[in-house]
Protein backbone atom coordinates (compact mmCIF):
# COMPACT_ATOMS: atom_id res chain seq x y z
CA UNK A 1 0.00 0.00 0.00
CA UNK A 2 3.01 2.26 0.37
CA UNK A 3 3.53 2.49 -3.40
CA UNK A 4 -0.11 3.37 -3.69
CA UNK A 5 0.21 6.24 -1.24
CA UNK A 6 3.21 7.58 -3.12
CA UNK A 7 1.56 7.35 -6.51
CA UNK A 8 -1.99 8.36 -5.69
CA UNK A 9 -1.69 11.07 -3.06
CA UNK A 10 -0.14 13.71 -5.33
CA UNK A 11 -3.04 13.30 -7.78
CA UNK A 12 -5.83 14.02 -5.29
CA UNK A 13 -5.89 17.81 -5.90
CA UNK A 14 -6.36 17.23 -9.65
CA UNK A 15 -9.12 14.69 -9.00
CA UNK A 16 -10.88 17.24 -6.81
CA UNK A 17 -10.59 19.86 -9.48
CA UNK A 18 -12.03 17.60 -12.17
CA UNK A 19 -14.85 16.43 -9.90
CA UNK A 20 -15.78 19.96 -8.92
CA UNK A 21 -15.71 21.24 -12.47
CA UNK A 22 -18.05 18.42 -13.47
CA UNK A 23 -20.38 18.48 -10.46
CA UNK A 24 -20.18 22.23 -9.78
CA UNK A 25 -20.76 21.60 -6.11
CA UNK A 26 -17.97 21.31 -3.62
CA UNK A 27 -19.54 18.82 -1.22
CA UNK A 28 -20.85 16.54 -3.96
CA UNK A 29 -17.50 16.64 -5.74
CA UNK A 30 -15.51 15.80 -2.63
CA UNK A 31 -17.87 12.93 -1.86
CA UNK A 32 -17.20 11.61 -5.32
CA UNK A 33 -13.44 11.89 -4.87
CA UNK A 34 -13.70 10.09 -1.53
CA UNK A 35 -15.63 7.29 -3.21
CA UNK A 36 -13.04 7.19 -5.94
CA UNK A 37 -10.17 6.91 -3.46
CA UNK A 38 -11.91 4.15 -1.52
CA UNK A 39 -12.34 2.20 -4.70
CA UNK A 40 -8.77 2.84 -5.74
CA UNK A 41 -7.57 1.47 -2.41
CA UNK A 42 -9.68 -1.67 -2.69
CA UNK A 43 -8.77 -2.28 -6.33
CA UNK A 44 -5.16 -1.21 -6.31
CA UNK A 45 -3.93 -4.73 -7.00
CA UNK A 46 -6.42 -5.24 -9.79
CA UNK A 47 -5.32 -2.33 -11.92
CA UNK A 48 -3.55 -3.04 -15.15
CA UNK A 49 -0.25 -1.57 -16.23
CA UNK A 50 -0.40 1.93 -17.53
CA UNK A 51 -0.92 5.38 -16.16
CA UNK A 52 -2.15 5.53 -12.56
CA UNK A 53 -3.43 8.99 -13.40
CA UNK A 54 -5.65 7.68 -16.20
CA UNK A 55 -6.81 4.81 -13.99
CA UNK A 56 -7.89 7.18 -11.20
CA UNK A 57 -9.61 9.56 -13.58
CA UNK A 58 -11.45 6.58 -15.09
CA UNK A 59 -12.81 5.53 -11.69
CA UNK A 60 -13.80 9.11 -10.89
CA UNK A 61 -15.36 9.75 -14.26
CA UNK A 62 -17.45 6.57 -14.09
CA UNK A 63 -18.70 7.50 -10.65
CA UNK A 64 -19.67 10.94 -11.92
CA UNK A 65 -21.48 9.50 -14.93
CA UNK A 66 -23.37 7.08 -12.69
CA UNK A 67 -24.46 10.01 -10.54
CA UNK A 68 -25.57 12.03 -13.55
CA UNK A 69 -27.62 9.11 -14.86
CA UNK A 70 -29.20 8.46 -11.50
CA UNK A 71 -30.04 12.14 -11.15
CA UNK A 72 -31.66 12.10 -14.56
CA UNK A 73 -33.50 8.84 -13.85
CA UNK A 74 -34.91 10.33 -10.67
CA UNK A 75 -35.84 13.48 -12.49
CA UNK A 76 -33.64 15.57 -10.28
CA UNK A 77 -32.51 18.80 -11.83
CA UNK A 78 -28.78 19.13 -12.38
CA UNK A 79 -27.84 22.77 -11.95
CA UNK A 80 -26.74 24.17 -15.27
CA UNK A 81 -27.44 27.86 -15.24
CA UNK A 82 -27.49 28.37 -11.54
CA UNK A 83 -24.67 29.96 -9.69
CA UNK A 84 -21.85 27.62 -9.02
CA UNK A 85 -19.18 29.59 -10.69
CA UNK A 86 -18.65 31.70 -7.60
CA UNK A 87 -17.95 28.55 -5.71
CA UNK A 88 -15.49 27.42 -8.33
CA UNK A 89 -13.58 30.60 -8.77
CA UNK A 90 -11.52 32.11 -6.03
CA UNK A 91 -8.25 33.95 -5.51
CA UNK A 92 -8.26 36.31 -8.44
CA UNK A 93 -8.67 40.01 -9.04
CA UNK A 94 -12.16 41.35 -9.57
CA UNK A 95 -11.90 41.63 -13.35
CA UNK A 96 -10.14 38.30 -13.73
CA UNK A 97 -12.75 36.71 -11.53
CA UNK A 98 -15.54 37.88 -13.81
CA UNK A 99 -13.76 36.46 -16.83
CA UNK A 100 -13.29 33.16 -15.06
CA UNK A 101 -16.90 32.99 -13.91
CA UNK A 102 -17.99 33.73 -17.42
CA UNK A 103 -15.93 30.99 -19.04
CA UNK A 104 -17.08 28.43 -16.45
CA UNK A 105 -20.69 29.40 -16.98
CA UNK A 106 -20.24 28.81 -20.67
CA UNK A 107 -18.41 25.57 -20.09
CA UNK A 108 -21.38 24.40 -18.05
CA UNK A 109 -23.63 24.81 -21.06
CA UNK A 110 -21.66 22.30 -23.12
CA UNK A 111 -22.99 18.77 -23.37
CA UNK A 112 -21.55 16.60 -20.63
CA UNK A 113 -19.36 14.53 -22.96
CA UNK A 114 -17.77 17.60 -24.54
CA UNK A 115 -17.20 19.20 -21.16
CA UNK A 116 -15.47 16.06 -19.88
CA UNK A 117 -13.08 15.90 -22.84
CA UNK A 118 -12.18 19.56 -22.59
CA UNK A 119 -11.50 19.31 -18.86
CA UNK A 120 -9.43 16.15 -19.13
CA UNK A 121 -7.32 17.40 -22.01
CA UNK A 122 -7.06 21.15 -21.57
CA UNK A 123 -7.10 21.39 -17.77
CA UNK A 124 -5.90 18.05 -16.44
CA UNK A 125 -3.26 17.57 -19.14
CA UNK A 126 -4.22 14.00 -19.96
CA UNK A 127 -2.82 12.76 -23.24
CA UNK A 128 -5.40 12.09 -25.96
CA UNK A 129 -4.79 8.36 -25.49
CA UNK A 130 -5.36 8.60 -21.73
CA UNK A 131 -8.50 10.69 -22.22
CA UNK A 132 -9.76 8.03 -24.65
CA UNK A 133 -9.11 5.36 -22.01
CA UNK A 134 -10.90 7.36 -19.30
CA UNK A 135 -13.94 7.95 -21.49
CA UNK A 136 -13.79 4.47 -23.01
CA UNK A 137 -13.99 5.77 -26.57
CA UNK A 138 -11.55 5.70 -29.52
CA UNK A 139 -9.03 8.53 -29.84
CA UNK A 140 -10.84 9.74 -32.97
CA UNK A 141 -13.92 10.33 -30.84
CA UNK A 142 -11.86 12.26 -28.30
CA UNK A 143 -10.56 14.50 -31.09
CA UNK A 144 -13.97 15.17 -32.60
CA UNK A 145 -15.53 15.88 -29.20
CA UNK A 146 -12.65 18.17 -28.34
CA UNK A 147 -13.08 20.01 -31.61
CA UNK A 148 -16.81 20.38 -31.12
CA UNK A 149 -16.32 21.50 -27.52
CA UNK A 150 -13.89 24.22 -28.54
CA UNK A 151 -15.98 25.47 -31.44
CA UNK A 152 -19.07 25.59 -29.33
CA UNK A 153 -17.39 27.29 -26.40
CA UNK A 154 -15.98 29.84 -28.83
CA UNK A 155 -19.41 30.54 -30.29
CA UNK A 156 -20.69 31.12 -26.77
CA UNK A 157 -17.80 33.45 -26.06
CA UNK A 158 -18.32 35.33 -29.30
CA UNK A 159 -21.96 35.66 -28.35
CA UNK A 160 -23.20 33.81 -31.39
CA UNK A 161 -26.09 31.42 -31.06
CA UNK A 162 -24.96 27.92 -31.97
CA UNK A 163 -25.99 27.04 -35.48
CA UNK A 164 -25.57 30.54 -36.82
CA UNK A 165 -21.98 30.02 -37.69
CA UNK A 166 -20.81 28.17 -40.72
CA UNK A 167 -18.62 25.35 -39.51
CA UNK A 168 -15.06 26.27 -40.08
CA UNK A 169 -13.59 24.44 -42.95
CA UNK A 170 -11.43 21.55 -41.95
CA UNK A 171 -7.93 22.01 -43.20
CA UNK A 172 -7.02 18.54 -44.20
Amino acid at each position, binding site marked *: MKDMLVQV*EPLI*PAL*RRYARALMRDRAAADDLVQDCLERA*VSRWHQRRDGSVRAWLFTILHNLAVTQFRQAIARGRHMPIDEAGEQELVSAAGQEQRLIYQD*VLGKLARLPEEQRAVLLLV*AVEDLSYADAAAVL*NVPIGTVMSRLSRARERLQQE*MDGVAPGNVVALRSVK
Partner: protein
Amino acid sequence: MSQRPITEDDLHAYVDQALEPERRAEVASYLDDHPDVAGRVAAFTTQREQLRGALASIADEPLPAELNLSRIIENRARRPVRGWGAIAAVLLLGIGAVGGWSMRSLLQEGSNGLSSLAQEAAYSYNVYAPDRVRPVEIRASDSAELTRWVSNRLQQPIKVPDLSVSGYRLMGGRLVATSHGPAAMFMYDDDRGDRLVVLTRPMSSGGRDTPMLPHVAGDVAGFAWADRGMGYTLVGQLSGEILKPIANEIRKQAGPI
Protein backbone atom coordinates in the same frame (compact mmCIF):
# COMPACT_ATOMS: atom_id res chain seq x y z
CA MET B 1 10.63 20.16 -46.41
CA SER B 2 8.54 17.01 -46.87
CA GLN B 3 5.40 18.55 -45.43
CA ARG B 4 2.53 16.34 -44.42
CA PRO B 5 -0.73 18.26 -44.68
CA ILE B 6 -1.78 20.00 -41.47
CA THR B 7 -4.90 18.43 -39.96
CA GLU B 8 -7.53 19.64 -37.57
CA ASP B 9 -6.05 17.24 -35.00
CA ASP B 10 -2.67 18.96 -35.42
CA LEU B 11 -4.27 22.29 -34.55
CA HIS B 12 -5.72 20.93 -31.33
CA ALA B 13 -2.48 19.20 -30.43
CA TYR B 14 -0.76 22.54 -31.08
CA VAL B 15 -3.11 24.25 -28.63
CA ASP B 16 -2.58 21.44 -26.09
CA GLN B 17 1.20 21.54 -26.57
CA ALA B 18 1.17 17.88 -27.46
CA LEU B 19 3.16 18.00 -30.70
CA GLU B 20 6.73 16.90 -31.29
CA PRO B 21 8.95 19.98 -31.74
CA GLU B 22 9.39 19.32 -35.45
CA ARG B 23 5.69 19.08 -36.15
CA ARG B 24 5.03 22.03 -33.89
CA ALA B 25 7.33 24.14 -36.06
CA GLU B 26 5.49 23.01 -39.19
CA VAL B 27 2.13 23.98 -37.71
CA ALA B 28 3.54 27.33 -36.56
CA SER B 29 4.75 28.12 -40.03
CA TYR B 30 1.39 27.08 -41.49
CA LEU B 31 -0.34 29.44 -39.05
CA ASP B 32 1.93 32.29 -40.16
CA ASP B 33 0.57 31.86 -43.66
CA HIS B 34 -3.06 31.39 -42.66
CA PRO B 35 -4.19 34.17 -40.35
CA ASP B 36 -7.83 32.99 -40.26
CA VAL B 37 -6.81 29.61 -38.90
CA ALA B 38 -4.28 31.29 -36.64
CA GLY B 39 -7.08 33.41 -35.17
CA ARG B 40 -9.07 30.31 -34.34
CA VAL B 41 -6.08 28.59 -32.78
CA ALA B 42 -5.36 31.71 -30.72
CA ALA B 43 -8.97 31.73 -29.51
CA PHE B 44 -8.72 28.07 -28.48
CA THR B 45 -5.48 28.83 -26.67
CA THR B 46 -7.18 31.66 -24.78
CA GLN B 47 -10.04 29.32 -23.82
CA ARG B 48 -7.56 26.82 -22.50
CA GLU B 49 -5.73 29.43 -20.42
CA GLN B 50 -8.95 30.82 -19.02
CA LEU B 51 -10.24 27.40 -18.03
CA ARG B 52 -6.96 26.51 -16.37
CA GLY B 53 -6.83 29.83 -14.57
CA ALA B 54 -10.43 29.61 -13.42
CA LEU B 55 -9.99 26.14 -11.93
CA ALA B 56 -6.40 26.38 -10.71
CA SER B 57 -7.20 27.44 -7.17
CA ILE B 58 -9.24 24.29 -6.48
CA ALA B 59 -6.10 22.18 -6.61
CA ASP B 60 -4.43 24.49 -4.09
CA GLU B 61 -7.08 24.11 -1.42
CA PRO B 62 -6.05 22.12 1.64
CA LEU B 63 -7.48 18.60 1.50
CA PRO B 64 -10.37 17.90 3.88
CA ALA B 65 -9.89 15.05 6.35
CA GLU B 66 -12.18 12.74 4.35
CA LEU B 67 -9.72 12.84 1.49
CA ASN B 68 -6.73 11.89 3.60
CA LEU B 69 -5.48 8.84 1.74
CA SER B 70 -3.53 7.34 4.64
CA ARG B 71 -6.69 7.39 6.67
CA ILE B 72 -8.73 5.79 3.87
CA ILE B 73 -6.15 3.01 3.56
CA GLU B 74 -6.18 2.49 7.31
CA ASN B 75 -9.97 2.30 7.49
CA ARG B 76 -10.09 -0.08 4.60
CA ALA B 77 -7.50 -2.38 6.14
CA ARG B 78 -9.51 -2.58 9.32
CA ARG B 79 -13.04 -2.81 8.02
CA PRO B 80 -13.36 -5.98 5.90
CA VAL B 81 -11.13 -8.01 8.19
CA ARG B 82 -13.33 -7.12 11.10
CA GLY B 83 -16.42 -8.03 9.09
CA TRP B 84 -15.23 -11.49 8.19
CA GLY B 85 -13.60 -11.98 11.55
CA ALA B 86 -16.89 -11.32 13.28
CA ILE B 87 -18.70 -13.84 11.13
CA ALA B 88 -16.01 -16.42 11.69
CA ALA B 89 -16.14 -15.84 15.43
CA VAL B 90 -19.89 -16.22 15.52
CA LEU B 91 -19.75 -19.36 13.46
CA LEU B 92 -16.95 -20.84 15.50
CA LEU B 93 -19.00 -20.38 18.63
CA GLY B 94 -21.65 -22.50 17.02
CA ILE B 95 -24.24 -19.77 17.14
CA GLY B 96 -24.18 -19.68 13.38
CA ALA B 97 -25.68 -23.13 13.17
CA VAL B 98 -29.04 -21.52 13.85
CA GLY B 99 -29.40 -20.13 10.38
CA GLY B 100 -27.93 -23.15 8.64
CA TRP B 101 -24.63 -21.33 8.23
CA SER B 102 -21.50 -23.40 8.29
CA MET B 103 -17.92 -22.54 9.10
CA ARG B 104 -16.67 -25.14 6.70
CA SER B 105 -14.55 -23.34 4.16
CA LEU B 106 -15.30 -23.90 0.54
CA LEU B 107 -11.68 -24.64 0.00
CA GLN B 108 -11.99 -27.72 2.14
CA GLU B 109 -13.18 -31.07 0.89
CA GLY B 110 -16.80 -31.97 0.86
CA SER B 111 -18.21 -28.68 -0.32
CA ASN B 112 -20.56 -30.45 -2.75
CA GLY B 113 -19.24 -28.64 -5.81
CA LEU B 114 -20.03 -25.28 -4.27
CA SER B 115 -16.39 -24.27 -4.49
CA SER B 116 -16.49 -24.40 -8.31
CA LEU B 117 -19.71 -22.43 -8.29
CA ALA B 118 -18.15 -19.81 -6.01
CA GLN B 119 -15.10 -19.65 -8.24
CA GLU B 120 -17.23 -19.21 -11.37
CA ALA B 121 -19.18 -16.41 -9.71
CA ALA B 122 -15.94 -14.65 -8.75
CA TYR B 123 -14.70 -14.94 -12.34
CA SER B 124 -17.96 -13.55 -13.69
CA TYR B 125 -17.86 -10.73 -11.18
CA ASN B 126 -14.31 -9.78 -12.12
CA VAL B 127 -15.12 -9.83 -15.82
CA TYR B 128 -18.55 -8.20 -15.93
CA ALA B 129 -18.95 -6.01 -12.84
CA PRO B 130 -16.20 -3.51 -13.81
CA ASP B 131 -17.64 -3.25 -17.33
CA ARG B 132 -19.14 0.22 -17.75
CA VAL B 133 -20.37 -0.28 -21.27
CA ARG B 134 -22.17 -3.61 -21.31
CA PRO B 135 -22.08 -5.32 -17.93
CA VAL B 136 -25.24 -7.23 -18.82
CA GLU B 137 -26.56 -8.52 -22.10
CA ILE B 138 -30.25 -8.13 -21.34
CA ARG B 139 -31.27 -5.15 -19.28
CA ALA B 140 -33.67 -5.15 -16.37
CA SER B 141 -36.26 -3.43 -18.56
CA ASP B 142 -36.50 -6.69 -20.52
CA SER B 143 -36.50 -8.94 -17.47
CA ALA B 144 -39.31 -11.12 -18.86
CA GLU B 145 -37.15 -11.95 -21.85
CA LEU B 146 -34.17 -12.50 -19.58
CA THR B 147 -36.14 -14.96 -17.43
CA ARG B 148 -37.40 -16.79 -20.50
CA TRP B 149 -33.93 -17.07 -22.00
CA VAL B 150 -32.08 -18.36 -18.95
CA SER B 151 -34.92 -20.70 -17.91
CA ASN B 152 -34.86 -22.12 -21.40
CA ARG B 153 -31.10 -22.63 -21.45
CA LEU B 154 -30.86 -23.98 -17.92
CA GLN B 155 -33.97 -26.11 -18.49
CA GLN B 156 -35.25 -24.96 -15.13
CA PRO B 157 -37.74 -22.27 -14.23
CA ILE B 158 -35.45 -19.49 -12.97
CA LYS B 159 -36.71 -16.65 -10.81
CA VAL B 160 -34.78 -13.38 -10.87
CA PRO B 161 -34.27 -12.41 -7.23
CA ASP B 162 -35.68 -9.03 -6.23
CA LEU B 163 -33.18 -7.27 -3.97
CA SER B 164 -34.92 -3.92 -3.71
CA VAL B 165 -35.53 -4.53 0.01
CA SER B 166 -31.75 -4.51 0.43
CA GLY B 167 -31.36 -1.38 -1.68
CA TYR B 168 -30.13 -3.11 -4.83
CA ARG B 169 -31.74 -2.71 -8.22
CA LEU B 170 -31.59 -5.31 -10.95
CA MET B 171 -29.38 -4.07 -13.81
CA GLY B 172 -29.99 -7.15 -15.94
CA GLY B 173 -28.29 -10.41 -16.67
CA ARG B 174 -26.72 -12.79 -19.10
CA LEU B 175 -25.86 -16.40 -19.66
CA VAL B 176 -22.27 -17.28 -18.73
CA ALA B 177 -20.22 -20.32 -19.59
CA THR B 178 -18.93 -22.55 -16.80
CA SER B 179 -17.18 -25.90 -16.84
CA HIS B 180 -20.51 -27.33 -15.70
CA GLY B 181 -22.51 -25.82 -18.55
CA PRO B 182 -24.46 -22.58 -18.78
CA ALA B 183 -25.21 -20.50 -15.71
CA ALA B 184 -27.50 -17.51 -15.28
CA MET B 185 -25.85 -14.35 -14.02
CA PHE B 186 -27.84 -11.44 -12.61
CA MET B 187 -26.28 -8.12 -11.72
CA TYR B 188 -27.51 -5.50 -9.28
CA ASP B 189 -26.34 -2.10 -8.14
CA ASP B 190 -27.16 0.38 -5.44
CA ASP B 191 -27.15 4.16 -5.31
CA ARG B 192 -23.41 4.24 -4.75
CA GLY B 193 -22.79 2.16 -7.85
CA ASP B 194 -21.65 -0.90 -5.88
CA ARG B 195 -22.43 -3.99 -7.88
CA LEU B 196 -23.51 -7.47 -6.82
CA VAL B 197 -23.62 -10.61 -8.90
CA VAL B 198 -25.90 -13.60 -8.38
CA LEU B 199 -24.94 -16.76 -10.28
CA THR B 200 -27.12 -19.84 -10.48
CA ARG B 201 -26.93 -23.16 -12.33
CA PRO B 202 -27.94 -26.78 -11.85
CA MET B 203 -25.54 -28.72 -9.62
CA SER B 204 -24.00 -31.76 -11.24
CA SER B 205 -23.71 -33.51 -7.89
CA GLY B 206 -27.45 -33.90 -7.60
CA GLY B 207 -30.14 -32.64 -5.36
CA ARG B 208 -28.69 -32.48 -1.88
CA ASP B 209 -29.35 -29.20 -0.11
CA THR B 210 -26.37 -27.61 1.58
CA PRO B 211 -25.79 -25.05 4.28
CA MET B 212 -24.79 -21.58 3.22
CA LEU B 213 -21.05 -21.29 2.88
CA PRO B 214 -18.97 -18.10 2.92
CA HIS B 215 -16.18 -17.74 0.40
CA VAL B 216 -13.53 -15.16 -0.40
CA ALA B 217 -11.40 -14.83 -3.52
CA GLY B 218 -9.20 -11.76 -3.55
CA ASP B 219 -11.44 -8.71 -3.22
CA VAL B 220 -14.60 -10.60 -4.05
CA ALA B 221 -16.52 -12.26 -1.25
CA GLY B 222 -19.80 -14.04 -1.07
CA PHE B 223 -21.93 -16.99 -0.07
CA ALA B 224 -22.85 -20.16 -1.94
CA TRP B 225 -25.48 -22.80 -1.32
CA ALA B 226 -27.56 -25.43 -3.10
CA ASP B 227 -31.28 -26.09 -2.89
CA ARG B 228 -33.24 -28.76 -4.77
CA GLY B 229 -30.47 -29.42 -7.27
CA MET B 230 -29.77 -25.78 -8.06
CA GLY B 231 -26.60 -23.99 -6.96
CA TYR B 232 -26.72 -20.32 -5.99
CA THR B 233 -24.07 -17.83 -5.10
CA LEU B 234 -24.00 -14.14 -4.29
CA VAL B 235 -20.73 -12.24 -4.70
CA GLY B 236 -19.61 -8.63 -4.35
CA GLN B 237 -16.86 -6.38 -3.08
CA LEU B 238 -18.56 -5.99 0.26
CA SER B 239 -18.09 -7.41 3.72
CA GLY B 240 -19.77 -10.63 4.74
CA GLU B 241 -21.90 -8.74 7.25
CA ILE B 242 -23.54 -6.88 4.40
CA LEU B 243 -23.76 -9.81 1.99
CA LYS B 244 -25.15 -12.35 4.45
CA PRO B 245 -28.67 -10.92 4.87
CA ILE B 246 -28.88 -10.39 1.09
CA ALA B 247 -27.92 -14.03 0.49
CA ASN B 248 -30.60 -15.09 3.00
CA GLU B 249 -33.15 -13.01 1.12
CA ILE B 250 -32.20 -14.65 -2.21
CA ARG B 251 -32.43 -18.12 -0.68
CA LYS B 252 -35.85 -17.32 0.72
CA GLN B 253 -37.12 -15.99 -2.62
CA ALA B 254 -35.77 -18.95 -4.59
CA GLY B 255 -37.58 -21.34 -2.29
CA PRO B 256 -40.74 -23.19 -3.32
CA ILE B 257 -43.75 -20.93 -3.58
